[in-house]
């Protein structure tokens, strides 16, 4: 049963769905419940997705043997859904970036600043992942961008299923940029493809420069490494070159950008990277509104 609620707030139309029994959009059979909390909803009420299991029956030509050679990837469902997300985004020419980091590395501040600086040139939409609260969504909402907050509850990462539902609740016009802020965690998000175009790992200089050695998977699976809070470098023991060397050993294709989202220093490098990644939908020389 699919109930749709339409409501208008601040000149935008929001569609909210309350999906009971099964998910009609992705055919998911997942048992988990996750709440999508929508910023901007007049009551700020939440709705729940409950998915009861329903089982697919498909033919296999295994005969009547007692041993089934399955060779099935444990993450196959997530990966399949991630590819569907990727197709959906590609069809809309939406560039999606999955931002991963430890808690407190400055992802939300970077997003706030990016949206504020580039909003005249790019349409941004944001999916905020946190275990609890709508705090980050409220911060993003203040920039004027459309945002969906996903609270994973006890979950430690976003998965393709959560993103599948969330992105369909955003308007995502052609050529939009979808910023997905993952749950602050350098371990679990590494394993879960969301269907993003690029993955960005954010590390702040107040963390150790040995993070690549400690958490190799996230650096190995990312496309770009943003080194944030560089304005604090004079006050902390953080060797940028050491970090780059060890992360580069894990992933020779990893690109690095050093910036301070607070002071703005180095942001033009990030905006130029976004300009390249989005196919020059923003002009490099005009990357910043100022």
């Amino acid at each position, binding site marked *: 049963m699919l109930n749709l609620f339409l409501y208008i707030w601040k000149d935008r139309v929001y569609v909210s769905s309350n999906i009971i029994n099964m998910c009609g959009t992705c055919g998911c059979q997942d048992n988990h419940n996750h709440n999508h909390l929508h910023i901007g909803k007049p009551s700020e009420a939440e709705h729940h997705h409950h998915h009861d299991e329903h089982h697919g029956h498909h033919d296999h030509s295994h005969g009547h043997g007692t041993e089934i050679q399955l060779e*099935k990837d444990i*993450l196959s469902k997530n990966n399949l859904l991630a590819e569907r997300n990727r197709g959906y985004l590609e069809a809309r020419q939406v560039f999606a970036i999955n931002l991963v980091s430890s808690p407190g590395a400055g992802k939300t501040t970077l997003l706030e600043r990016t949206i504020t600086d580039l909003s005249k040139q790019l349409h941004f939409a944001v999916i905020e992942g946190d275990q609890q609260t709508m705090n980050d969504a409220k911060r993003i909402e203040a920039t004027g961008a459309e945002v969906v907050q996903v609270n994973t509850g006890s979950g*430690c990462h976003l998965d393709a299923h959560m993103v599948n539902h969330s992105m369909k609740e955003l308007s995502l016009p052609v050529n939009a940029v979808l910023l997905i802020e993952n749950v602050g965690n350098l371990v679990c998000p590494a*394993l879960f493809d969301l269907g993003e175009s690029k993955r960005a790992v954010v590390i702040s200089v107040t963390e150790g420069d040995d993070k690549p050695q400690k958490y190799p998977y996230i650096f190995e699976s990312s496309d770009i490494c943003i080194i944030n809070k560089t304005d604090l470098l004079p006050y902390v023991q953080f060797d940028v070159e050491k970090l780059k060397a060890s992360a580069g050993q894990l992933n020779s294709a990893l690109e690095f950008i050093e910036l301070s989202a607070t002071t703005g220093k180095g942001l033009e490098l990030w905006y130029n990277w976004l300009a390249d990644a989005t196919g020059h939908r923003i002009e490099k020389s005009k990357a910043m509104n100022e």
Partner: protein
Amino acid sequence: MHEFSLAQNIVEIATEQFHGHNVRKIEAIDIEIGTLSGVVKEALEFALEEAVKNTVLEKATIRLIDIQARANCGACGNTFDMNDFFGVCPACQSPQCEIISGKELKIKSLRIDY
């Protein structure tokens, strides 16, 4: 923590197979875990203990099989066991090595009883 998600996925896949094959019982399940898959075997074992309760896998024998990571040296072509992402080729010390196995996370087989 992500091991619990994986344990749930394993139960889901097994449940689909159970219904798809119209079987009476799943006796055993073999799961391959690469040594560089990012999964802690003990954590997955622990998560599975909980995740299988009241499911088709509750009475099944669960075997977690390690798949040793192997890498291929881009400089000299040597193939060797890789124990972490920072491994270098033991023959020529080159760090330019491509991991060719050891990231597996898969259900290899199920033993069922009709």
